[in-house]
C-alpha cells in the first residue's frame, strides 16, 4: 500500500448492543506514522470503537459504518478467515486489560509465538529466536527465562510489555493500543509510552486510547475526544490541549490536577457543592513549616511492620517510618505499588499492630493500647478507601449506613436522625432521596461521596484516605478532590492522603512522604519535594509523570534518547 493512503479509514461508525446504541457517528483516519489518541471518560465507547475496528466488537453487537477500511481492505464484509489473516498481521491490538490479556496457563513465549505461528511458516527454531528478539525489543530482562514463564509470574509492567511484544511480533502497519498504561506505576507507564512512541517512529500508524489526557499528550499527533459514544471534538494535539473548544473537553482538561495549586477547583461548581464552598486559598493552610508549638494530631515514630511468611521467613513491608500530621493539614504519602503505603495507613488506623515503633493520636499512645481503649477515641479518626463499595455492609441502604455510623455519636431520636442523614448527604453533594438507595446502585463517584459522608458522621478530626480517587475518572476524581478540599477548609480536618499519583498528591498535600520498598526515601514540604527532589527515586518518579499541562511537545529525537531503557526497536520496513 502506498504511504499516502490511510491505514485506517472510518466513517459514521455505529455500534449497538441489542438495540442500545453505544457508539455512533464515529469518523476518523489514521495514516502511517501518525498517532491518533481517542480520549474520554469511562464508558464513553473508546474500547468498543477500537474492538469494532478489528471485527471483535463482541457478542450481540451490530456494527454499521459507511466506510470501514483497515489496511486498505473493506472490513465490513470480511469472512472469519480473512479477519483472522488480517488481525495480528496488519493490525496489532493491545488490549485494555493488560493484566489478564495473557493466558495464565500458557508461557509468555508460547503466547508470543502464536502470533508468529498463525501468520507465517517459519520453523519452530526461527520463531523461538524471534520471540527472544521481541522480548529484548520490548525491554524485558533475561528474555529466555521470561519466555518460559507464565503471566502469573510476571509483574504488571512485564505483562504489558509481553503483550506489546505479541502485538508487534509481525510488525503490523497499524497498532491499536487500548489504555496501555492503566494499572501501571508511573515509572513503568512512562517507559511503555516510550516504547509505543518508538514504534510509531518506525512508521506504524497508531490508535492510542486513554481516559487520561495527560498521558496521551506526549505521544499523540491528533486527539479525538469522545463523550457518550460520539466524538465531540477532534484536532491536532497541541490545539486541543491548549485551546479546547467543546465544554466537555474543557472540563476534562480542568479536572487534571497536574500543575494546579492547592485549593484550586478542578471541577465545575455543582449546585450542592457551591453552597458549601468558600474559596479561600491559603490562609488556613499556609505553605512552609508550621509553628513549632502546634501539636501533631497523629504521629508515628520508627514504625515497622514485618509479615511472617511461613514459620521462619518474614517480609518487612514497612521500615522505620516517622511522620507527623498537623491540624488542618494534609500529609501526602506517595510511592509505587507495594511500597507499603496501605500497611502504614492500617497501622496508623490501629488495625494492624506495628512490629516496632509507635503511633500516637493527640499525643496519647494509640498503637500500643488495647482496642477497647482505642475504641473510645475512634470517633476522631476516620478512613476512606479506594473501593468504597466493599467497605459497605451490602445489606444496608445508603441511609442505613449513615444511620449506623451516626448511632455512635448522634442523637437517638429517629426524626433528628433523618435530619442528620440528610445533612450529611447534602454535605457531600448527594440528594436526600438517595438515602433509600442501595450503594451498589450508585456510581463510583457517588459511592466515594457516601464513604466520605460516613467517615464524617462521627465528626472526626483526622481522615486517612487510602487511594480515595484512584478508581475514578479524572472528572469524577476532580469532584471528589474538590469535596475533600472544601471539607478540610470548613472543618479544619487533617488528612493522611495516600496516592500513587504524583499530580494528585501535589495538588492535595502540604507535606509529602515518598515511600519506596517500605522506607521513606524523602520527606518535606510539597513545594520542596516537587521542585527540588533530593532523592534519586523521587526524581525518577517526577520525570516519568507528565505533571504539567499544556504539554510541551517532545521531539522525536529526544524520545529516542529517552528510551534507552526500553531498548531499541526495529522499525517496520
Amino acid at each position, binding site marked *: 500500500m502506498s504511504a499516502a493512503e490511510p491505514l485506517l479509514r472510518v466513517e459514521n461508525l455505529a455500534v449497538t448492543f441489542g438495540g442500545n446504541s453505544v457508539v455512533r457517528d464515529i469518523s476518523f483516519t489514521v495514516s502511517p506514522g501518525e498517532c491518533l489518541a481517542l480520549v474520554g471518560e469511562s464508558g464513553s465507547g473508546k474500547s468498543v470503537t477500537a474492538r469494532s475496528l478489528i471485527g471483535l466488537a463482541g457478542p450481540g453487537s451490530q456494527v454499521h459504518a459507511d466506510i470501514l477500511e483497515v489496511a486498505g481492505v473493506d472490513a465490513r464484509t470480511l469472512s472469519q478467515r480473512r479477519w483472522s489473516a488480517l488481525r495480528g498481521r496488519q493490525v496489532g491490538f493491545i488490549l485494555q486489560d493488560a493484566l489478564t490479556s495473557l493466558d495464565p496457563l500458557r508461557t509468555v513465549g508460547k503466547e508470543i509465538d502464536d502470533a508468529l505461528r498463525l501468520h507465517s511458516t517459519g520453523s519452530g527454531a526461527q520463531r523461538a529466536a524471534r520471540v527472544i528478539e521481541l522480548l529484548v525489543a520490548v525491554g524485558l530482562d533475561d528474555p529466555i527465562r521470561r519466555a518460559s514463564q507464565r503471566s502469573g509470574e510476571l509483574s504488571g509492567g512485564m505483562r504489558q510489555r509481553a503483550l506489546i511484544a505479541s502485538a508487534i511480533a509481525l510488525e503490523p502497519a497499524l497498532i491499536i493500543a487500548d489504555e496501555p498504561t492503566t494499572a501501571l506505576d508511573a515509572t513503568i507507564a512512562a517507559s511503555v509510552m516510550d516504547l509505543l512512541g518508538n514504534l510509531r517512529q518506525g512508521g506504524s500508524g497508531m490508535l492510542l486510547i486513554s481516559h487520561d489526557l495527560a498521558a496521551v499528550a506526549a505521544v499523540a499527533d491528533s486527539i479525538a475526544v469522545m463523550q457518550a459514544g460520539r466524538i465531540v471534538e477532534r484536532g491536532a494535539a497541541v490545539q486541543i490541549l491548549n485551546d479546547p473548544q467543546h465544554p466537555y473537553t474543557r472540563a476534562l482538561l480542568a479536572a487534571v490536577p497536574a500543575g494546579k495549586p492547592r485549593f484550586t477547583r478542578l471541577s465545575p461548581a455543582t449546585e450542592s457543592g457551591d453552597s458549601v464552598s468558600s474559596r479561600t486559598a491559603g490562609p488556613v493552610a499556609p505553605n512552609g513549616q508550621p509553628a513549632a508549638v502546634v501539636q501533631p494530631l497523629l504521629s508515628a515514630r520508627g514504625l515497622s511492620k514485618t509479615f511472617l511468611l511461613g514459620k521462619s521467613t518474614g517480609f518487612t513491608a514497612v521500615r522505620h517510618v516517622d511522620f507527623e500530621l498537623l491540624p488542618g493539614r494534609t500529609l501526602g504519602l506517595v510511592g509505587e505499588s507495594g511500597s507499603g503505603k496501605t500497611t502504614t495507613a492500617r497501622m496508623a488506623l490501629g488495625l494492624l499492630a506495628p512490629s516496632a515503633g509507635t503511633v500516637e493520636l493527640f499525643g496519647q499512645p494509640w498503637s500500643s493500647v488495647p482496642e477497647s481503649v482505642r475504641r473510645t477515641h475512634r470517633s476522631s479518626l476516620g478512613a476512606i478507601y479506594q473501593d468504597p463499595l466493599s467497605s459497605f*455492609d451490602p445489606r444496608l441502604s445508603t441511609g442505613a449506613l449513615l444511620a449506623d455510623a451516626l448511632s455512635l455519636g448522634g442523637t437517638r431520636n429517629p426524626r433528628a436522625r433523618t435530619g442528620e442523614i440528610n445533612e450529611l448527604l447534602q454535605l457531600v453533594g448527594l440528594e436526600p432521596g438517595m438515602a433509600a438507595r442501595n450503594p451498589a446502585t450508585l456510581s463510583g463517584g457517588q459511592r466515594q461521596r457516601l464513604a466520605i459522608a460516613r467517615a464524617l458522621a462521627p465528626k472526626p478530626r483526622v481522615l486517612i484516605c487510602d487511594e480515595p480517587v484512584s478508581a475514578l475518572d479524572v472528572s469524577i476524581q476532580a469532584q471528589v478532590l474538590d469535596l475533600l478540599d472544601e471539607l478540610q477548609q470548613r472543618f479544619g480536618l487533617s488528612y493522611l492522603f495516600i496516592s500513587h499519583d504524583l499530580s494528585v498528591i501535589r495538588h492535595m498535600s502540604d507535606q509529602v512522604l515518598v515511600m519506596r520498598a517500605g522506607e521513606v526515601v524523602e520527606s518535606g514540604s510539597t513545594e520542596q519535594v516537587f521542585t527540588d527532589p533530593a532523592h534519586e527515586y523521587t526524581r525518577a518518579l517526577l520525570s516519568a509523570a507528565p505533571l504539567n499541562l499544556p504539554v510541551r511537545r517532545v521531539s522525536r529525537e529526544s524520545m529516542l534518547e529517552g528510551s534507552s531503557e526500553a531498548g531499541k526497536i526495529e522499525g517496520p520496513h
Partner: protein
Amino acid sequence: MRRLAAHLPLVAVAAVLLFFVLAAIAPNLLSPVDPLAISPTQAFSAPGAEHLLGTDESGRDIYSRIIHGARPSLLIGAAATAIGLGLALVLGTIAGFGGRWLDFGVGRLLEVLFALPGLLLALVFIAFAGPGVATTVMAVGLTTAPGYARMIRAQIIALRASPMVEAATVLGRSRARILTVHILPNALAPIAVLATLGLGQAILWAASLSFLGLGARPPAPEWGTMLSAGRTYLALAWWMTFFPGLAIVLVAAASTVLSRILKSRGVR
C-alpha cells in the same frame, strides 16, 4: 418478546415450585382423590381419562399419590436441608470465629465427614442408627452438612478480613457488634441460595435411601418410595416408576435453576 424469553426460566421454575408447594400445603385442592384408597380391580390401569397418570398395584391413583406425596417428600428434603444447614452453621461459625485451634479442629472434622461421600456416610449412619424417616432426614442432613459448613466458614473468614469489617472497626464498633450486626447476617445471606439448591439435592438423597429400602415406608405416598415400589412392575406399568421420578427430577431441577437465578441476581 425478548424480555419474556429472558424470564422464561424463572417463570417455568416458579410454576413448577409453586405447583408442588401448593400440593404440599393443600393437596386436596389439586387432587381430591384419596391417595390411599385401594381398588384391586383397577390395579395397573394405564394413564388415561379416569386416572390421569394411571394406577399402581393396589389401584391407587398415581396422580393423587404424587400430589399427596409432595408434602412428605418436600418436608423430608426441607428438614434434611435445615439440619444440614443448621449443623453447618454451627460448625462453620465455630471454625470461622473460634480461633486457630477450633478452626483446625473443625477443619479436620469436615475432612473426615468429606472422606465418606454422600450415600456412604448416610449408610454408615443408618448402620448404627437403624433405618426410618427420622434417620433418613438426619443422615441426609449429616451428608450435606460438611459442604455447607465449608462454604459458611469461608464466607465468615472472608468477611472477617473484609474492608467492611475494617470500616466498622474504624468507626469504633465492638467486636461483638461487628460479629452480630455485620459478619453473621452477611454470612447467612448465601443460605438462601444454598437452601434452594440443597432442597432439591436432599430430596434426591432421601429418595435414594427410600429406594434402597432405608427411608420412608409405603403405603405413605412419598416419591422415592413410590418409585421404589414401582420398579418391581417396571415392565408391566412403567407409569408407576416414571411419574414419581419425573416429580423428583422436576423439583430438583427447578431448585437448581432457582438457586442459579438467585445467585445471578446477586443474592450472595
